[in-house]
């Protein structure tokens, strides 16, 4: 090994503490990037490979009831490759071990065997055998949530009739990767199940002999989806078709896409900021580190090494540190990415996960870090190597100092000399001081960003599930029904109050833009379902006309006063022009609202309701649930408290896990930066601090000078970090999606946490440096010429 290389490893060993701290900064940024991209890539890859191999449908439609022979006519539509029809029946399930109501969708299996489109993946057990009327396979999310095994029996109420069902297998489905109960915005595996049964029992249970009510199509490559949808709508209209739609409106796919959008934002903004901050800090730190090597560089030059050779030598040093950081970051990122993906798998019911770490992720993270580090190092080395060796080997010429502004203003007459030293050191090289402040501030800022998500989630939950929705239970009827049904609800024991609503599926049009959603017909100034603006104030529903979530209005390019085309997707399937009267800012979901009487008038129906929000004495809940199950018209019952729980069990958990990992990495970066700032300040000042020790200054007195400077930097950095953190949070929420508009809510505790971590990092670094000060060999330091 060449002598220079031996020196390299010795130097590295000598500065191991600092090298490790720099490596941590690199590792933090790299890990965030690897974590985010590998999680997203894995989910997307898994999704597309399952769609392909499981023949996920291209077009879907639901209808009231069509005879089986319609199937041939659908198959004849140009562009249609496969048709699969089935019967879907809502049901309520009884599990002796679970007191809350469970809703289910029972789907018929083709008579010919397992579905050809939207394949089922058998996870355990077997498929129902032909002729076995009680056998069913159940969705794996539900099975897992209740620890159900093949062989378990349960009771289902289908269309008012109770039946015993035997679970023989557990499946996942390409069609229900995101399992959302109709009308809900959060998957809840405990209270919603999907069941697949043989065709015959479903047919007879639902009076659908020789008929179907759902259809999926696979199209020929290159076929026009729009044309097929139009033809299918024409065919199904006489049979109560609810409007065909493509993948983009298929519930599982749509929510998955929106979730991926959200994840993409997190996977782009977080790593971009982390890598950027990391690269910046790396640059600052490596520049400083090289500046402390001035004497050594001079000696090498004196030996006859060329500047490029010396630069190469120090680049190797930098590369080794960066390589260590990248390796740590890649390993940690991959480990966390696997963990994170596995967690998403609990939420997205993929039958398997294909973990992907794309080579470009590795290449990019290595390149970004190397460039940042070498840019800093090369600049510093070239600057140092530019000096004539003889001069560089002399102690550095005393720097140019002057009175600080404070002193020139006469405001600092009583300052002690150490305090003057602190102030002048800071003021003499304001750029350097500024970079130090910025470096520490940025590490504080990413900590704010880590904590922010938990604040935002809590805020959204409180807003949606405590302030806006105040019901105890929500009951949905199978079909729209007369307002009189309310009496049957209020007469149940423990029900204090029932507030009706009408919900109707629609397609909203503005020119070529359209959006499938439902119009919620609510009571004006309702008690249990309150429409709130972002200031949490209850708002008036317009007397007539439509109100949209502002996000949806923007998406459809609508402003109040515009006319919206409302295509009703059920019943008479009327098309109406309705004025957009107002918009409302909401955080979760996108909706359209009308006053219930106005909606009833629009649909030309009497006082119809789709369901009701109930205020109930929840101590009587078991009785209420069992009585509701007896009501044939009740399609589902949802407890708000359960929704809240399920939100935290699912969506919140993912976001918070992601945020937790990021906080961890942010803290790593923060510690790395603060320690390096302190450590480099020590290298730069050790000579003058040793002089002061010789003059009789105590350890505490010289610590004050060094740590005082660090303290000033940290105290300036903390508020700046809070401000930058807020700015970064703003960036990360800038892109809204259909699921959430994350509000910029940062609690004081989040700022405090960030400040605390930075302070803790500073204290630990300060103590470490203080230890170095205590063990400083005065004679040695003074002899060393820098």
């Amino acid at each position, binding site marked *: 090994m060449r002598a220079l290389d031996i020196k390299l490893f010795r130097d590295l060993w000598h500065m191991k503490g600092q090298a490790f701290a720099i490596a941590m900064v690199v590792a933090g940024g790299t890990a965030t990037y690897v974590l985010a991209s590998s999680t997203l890539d894995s989910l997307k890859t898994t999704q597309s490979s399952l769609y392909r191999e499981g023949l996920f449908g291209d077009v879907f439609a639901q209808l009231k009831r069509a005879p089986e022979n319609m199937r041939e006519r659908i198959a004849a539509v140009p562009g249609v490759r496969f048709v699969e029809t089935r019967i879907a029946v809502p049901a309520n399930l009884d599990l002796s071990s679970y007191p809350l109501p469970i809703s289910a969708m029972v789907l018929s299996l083709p008579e010919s065997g397992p579905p050809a489109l939207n394949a089922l993946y058998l996870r355990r057990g077997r498929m129902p055998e032909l002729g076995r009327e009680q056998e069913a396979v159940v969705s794996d999310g539900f099975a897992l949530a209740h620890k159900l095994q093949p062989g378990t029996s349960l009771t289902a109420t289908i269309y008012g009739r109770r039946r015993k069902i035997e679970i023989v297998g557990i499946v996942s489905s390409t069609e229900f990767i995101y399992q959302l109960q109709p009308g809900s915005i959060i998957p809840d595996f405990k209270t919603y199940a999907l069941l697949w049964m043989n065709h015959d029992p479903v047919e007879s249970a639902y009076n659908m002999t020789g008929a179907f009510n759902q259809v999926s199509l696979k199209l020929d490559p290159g076929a026009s989806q729009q044309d097929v949808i139009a033809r299918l709508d024409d065919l199904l209209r006489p049979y109560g078709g609810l409007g065909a739609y493509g993948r983009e409106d298929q519930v599982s796919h749509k929510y998955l896409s929106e979730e991926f959008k959200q994840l993409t934002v997190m996977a782009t903004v977080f790593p971009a900021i982390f890598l950027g901050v990391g690269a910046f800090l790396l640059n600052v730190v490596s520049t400083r580190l090289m500046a402390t090597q001035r004497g050594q560089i001079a000696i090498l030059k004196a030996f006859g090494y060329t500047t490029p050779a010396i630069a190469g030598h120090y680049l190797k040093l930098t590369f080794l540190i960066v390589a260590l950081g990248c390796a740590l970051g890649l390993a940690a990122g991959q480990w966390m990415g696997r963990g994170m993906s596995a967690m998403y798998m609990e939420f997205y019911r993929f039958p398997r996960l294909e973990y992907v770490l794309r080579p470009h992720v590795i290449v990019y993270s290595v390149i970004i870090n190397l460039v940042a580090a070498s840019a800093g190092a090369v600049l510093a080395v070239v600057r140092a190597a530019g000096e004539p060796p003889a001069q560089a080997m002399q102690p550095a010429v*005393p720097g140019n100092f002057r009175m600080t502004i404070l002193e020139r203003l006469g405001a600092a007459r009583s300052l002690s*000399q150490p305090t003057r030293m602190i102030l002048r050191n800071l003021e003499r090289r304001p750029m350097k001081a500024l970079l130090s402040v910025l470096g520490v501030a940025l590490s504080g800022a990413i900590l704010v960003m880590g904590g922010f998500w938990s604040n935002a989630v809590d805020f959204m939950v409180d807003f949606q599930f405590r302030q806006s929705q105040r019901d105890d239970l929500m009951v949905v009827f199978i079909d729209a029904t007369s307002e009189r049904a309310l009496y049957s609800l209020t007469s149940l024991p423990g029900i204090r109050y029932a507030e009706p609503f009408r919900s109707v599926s629609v397609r909203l049009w503005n020119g070529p833009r359209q959006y499938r959603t439902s119009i919620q017909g609510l009571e004006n100034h309702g008690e249990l379902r309150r429409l709130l603006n972002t200031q949490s104030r209850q708002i008036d529903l317009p007397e007539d006309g439509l109100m949209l979530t502002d996000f949806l209005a923007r998406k459809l390019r609508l402003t109040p006063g515009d006319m919206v085309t409302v295509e009703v997707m059920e019943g008479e399937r009327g098309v109406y022009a309705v004025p957009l009267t107002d918009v409302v800012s909401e955080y979760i979901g996108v909706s359209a609202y009308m006053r219930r009487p106005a909606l009833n008038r629009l649909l030309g129906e009497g006082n119809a309701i789709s369901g009701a929000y109930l205020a109930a004495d929840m101590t009587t809940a078991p009785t209420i649930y069992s009585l509701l199950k007896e009501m044939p018209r009740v399609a589902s019952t949802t407890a708000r408290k359960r929704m809240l729980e399920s939100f935290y069990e699912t969506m919140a958990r993912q976001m918070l896990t992601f945020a937790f990992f990021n906080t961890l990495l942010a803290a790593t970066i923060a510690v790395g930066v603060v320690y390096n700032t302190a450590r480099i300040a020590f290298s730069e000042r050790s000579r*003058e601090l040793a002089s002061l020790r010789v003059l009789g200054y*105590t350890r505490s007195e010289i610590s004050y000078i060094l740590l005082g400077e660090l303290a000033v930097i940290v105290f300036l950095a903390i508020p700046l970090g809070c401000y930058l953190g807020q700015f970064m949070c703003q960036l990360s929420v800038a892109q809204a999606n259909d699921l959430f508009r994350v509000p910029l809510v940062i609690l004081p505790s989040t700022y405090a946490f960030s400040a605390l971590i930075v302070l803790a990092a500073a204290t630990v670094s300060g103590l470490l440096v203080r230890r170095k000060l205590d063990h400083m060999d005065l004679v040695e330091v003074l002899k060393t010429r820098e």
Partner: protein
Amino acid sequence: MSLAPGGARESVFEARGVTKTYDMGEVRVQALRGADMDLFAGELMVLLGPSGSGKSTLLNILGGLDTATAGAVRYRGFDLTHATDRELTRYRRLHVGFVFQFYNLIPSLTARENVAAVTEIASNPMKPEEALELVGLGDRMHHFPSQLSGGQQQRVAIARAIAKRPSVLLCDEPTGALDWETGVVVLEAIETVNRELGTATAVITHNADIAGMASRVIHMSNGHISSVEENTARRSPRDLHW
């Protein structure tokens, strides 16, 4: 020259059988091998020897920057060999003035403030201005080190060393980095301090010519005191040539 009762000279330092061994991993370097010496009150002593003879080590031990491996070093009866770090700090703070080859001024403080850095923590200091006048820098008080020549910086270092009215002034190659002209000015400053304040002064040098200004010259070689000579014909720094 002050005399103790009975005619014996009063010792500021008494070093007896001082050894210093540096443990450099597998090699042990003996820098001092049983050195005996005294520094008397008010005298200007020059410690002469080639590099590696142990003179800097001895000076560092006298100044409380280092401790002896064996032997006894006393400062006015106070045992420096077994002093704690806290005691040594206090000792340096109150009793010792140091001057180094490379000035070691604080670049961020002006000449006056560099001196004030010491007077602020001493118990009976002179005014910083007074100390700077003494070394002939009354007019350079508000200059930063970067605005001063090497000789001027060294004189600030001397002013800083003596402003606390130390009992001893220890100078390690004070002219090592200076040309003759400036070196003389610095040596004159040291002599002035010795004469006017009566500060016992030890100057380390490998330059035999400088010994001409001393009242006593101690020769060192290979970790020993090889000889001690009284200088009966002291010369002023201006008359020295090297």
